[in-house]
């Protein structure tokens, strides 16, 4: 066994603890997956039937054929990707400005932005609803995306990241004849890609999982995001008469998140580890 492997091996009690913890985390997910692969009628008789074959993809066929789930999925993708792209753009620009540009009231303005972190969404949801209603922005992609763009944490995060990049690089680029925008675009932005990835993943996940604002803003089924759509389909007795279909919807909804996680695993784990050790 290599030295590295020996060093990384957990002591037995810790290993057992980790396995138990992992089992507790995985069990509900596995249960959801198994339920989604059983017909509703079988599950109505006994939900324990999920533990034994036969399994079927019928519920997934129903989702793709007859339900609004693909449309809600598309809505969620548009809203989440739109929010993520806009947040990355705005936070990078704002972060660069706070970190590198000298302008009046910079410090006060930065503190003002940070104060946004202390304001819970609940405190502003009613005036925001009234504002959007008066502007006629409800039931639109813009209405779903716009509130997510106020991202004080993103501004703070990108500011701190840009501050950590040595100013020598800006100065070297200035001596190389680069304009302010070119320094941002060609030097600092590429160097901030790890931060962009981390912020992007968390913004995407946050937007994807957001339930409250879409519930208020999207009132017609064609503008539902997946979270609101799935909740709307859980009518009375859904837990008993359509359990398999319900679970299939949940699994289906989590596929994009799973893809995002697989692609950006390194950044997500890195951000978590960073938060833990900071």
């Amino acid at each position, binding site marked *: 066994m290599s030295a590295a492997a020996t060093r990384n091996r957990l002591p037995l009690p810790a290993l057992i603890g980790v396995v138990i913890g992992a089992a507790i985390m995985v069990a509900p997910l596995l249960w959801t997956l198994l339920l989604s692969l059983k017909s509703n009628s079988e599950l109505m008789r006994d939900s324990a039937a999920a533990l034994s074959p036969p399994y079927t993809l019928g519920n997934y066929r129903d989702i793709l054929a007859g339900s609004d789930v693909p449309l809600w999925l598309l809505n969620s993708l548009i809203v989440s990707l739109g929010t993520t792209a806009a947040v990355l753009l705005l936070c990078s620009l704002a972060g660069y400005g706070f970190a590198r540009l000298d302008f009046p009231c910079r410090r006060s303005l930065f503190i003002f932005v940070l104060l946004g972190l202390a304001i819970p969404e609940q405190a502003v949801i009613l005036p925001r609803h009234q504002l959007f209603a008066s502007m006629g922005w409800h039931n639109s992609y813009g209405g779903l995306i716009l509130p997510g763009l106020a991202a004080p944490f993103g501004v703070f995060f990108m500011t701190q990241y840009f501050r950590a990049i040595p100013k020598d690089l800006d*100065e070297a680029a*200035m*001596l*190389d*004849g*680069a304009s302010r925008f070119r320094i941002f675009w060609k030097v600092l932005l*590429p160097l901030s890609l790890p931060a962009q990835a981390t912020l992007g993943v968390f913004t995407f996940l946050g937007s994807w999982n957001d339930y409250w604002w879409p519930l208020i803003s999207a009132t017609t089924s064609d503008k539902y995001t997946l979270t609101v759509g799935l909740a709307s389909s859980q009518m009375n007795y859904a837990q008993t008469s359509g359990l398999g279909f319900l679970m299939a919807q949940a699994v289906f909804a989590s596929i994009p998140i799973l893809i995002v996680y697989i692609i950006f695993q390194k950044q997500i784990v890195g951000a978590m580890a960073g938060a833990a050790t900071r």
Partner: protein
Amino acid sequence: MASLSLIDVHKRYGSTAVLDGVSLEMEKKEFIAFLGPSGSGKSTLLRIIAGLETADSGEVWLDGRRIDGLTPGDRGVALVFQQYALYPHMTVRENMAFGLRNAKVPASEITTRIEQAARTLEIDQLLDRKPGQLSGGQRQRVAIGRAIVKAPKLFLLDEPLSNLDAALRNRTRVELAQLRQRVDAAVIMVTHDQAEAMTLADRIVVMSDRSIQQVGTPMEIYDRPANRFVAGFVGSPAMTMLPVTLDPSGNADAIVRLGNGTLIATQIKREELTGETSFDLGLRPESVTVAAVGAGTLDAEAVIVERLGDRTLVYARLDDGSEITAVDRGDSKLHMGDRLGLLIDGRSAHLFGSDGSGYHAEQTI
């Protein structure tokens, strides 16, 4: 015509003055070192020339063109940063090409210039690597290469050797000396290392306390320090300073008296010493040699004995408590605590007046 002219440059950070009326003329292809302790303003002056700082007042001219109002990229200068400041996400080739692309140099010429510089600096094997894959010495060469390809009128080097280990520093120092012969530009190097300044520069600008203390060739600086600060800062070990009074004896050349009454004959013209009678006698270690007890100019006790191989440095304490540095042979038998005689060669001694001004023998250069 001077390559670079600095005219009465002032700079303050808030209420703190950093540069106080600095003026300097620099010739074409000249290599000048700004030498001084931390906080002396040398780096600020370099950054003002580069355009990374703005002077509060004063003018900067390069090749007959006033540049202090221009952006750094338009000044015709290139700076090699202390920490190299290579773009980490770009390859060596891209690092070197970045400035040229900004200047809209045709692609074919960019390639030619990069390959030429890479051959000169022996980094042609590294062109497709990123800075993170290079050693400190290689990064240093790339940083120099990035400056060379721009064919600037003036190279600015900010402590270029400070991040290298001792062996690499000596090698790079030799390479820098060779490099300056090949580039058709003036060079300014900021350093706090006097050995770098002495070995590389045509002239040294010694800075301290927000202003230039002395400008001169390395030997002028060493042999005729303008004031007490320069005398103490340049030379290792530092020049010994002993309080003396001017003795009425002697004719044209001054004779001074140490605290214990010992007379030392200098070759400094008495007429230059304007009315003062109390001075500090400045002695380089090589002006003080070890002799047998009682056989020298005065006796002392060895406090520290540093054996350097070819010579031995003896830090000794005189009977009145003042300290003096002397030189002995490489195979010196002296030990700490030994009594010894010291032979002072007054011909190469210096005198410093109460305002710090230096007086020197005429023929020392």
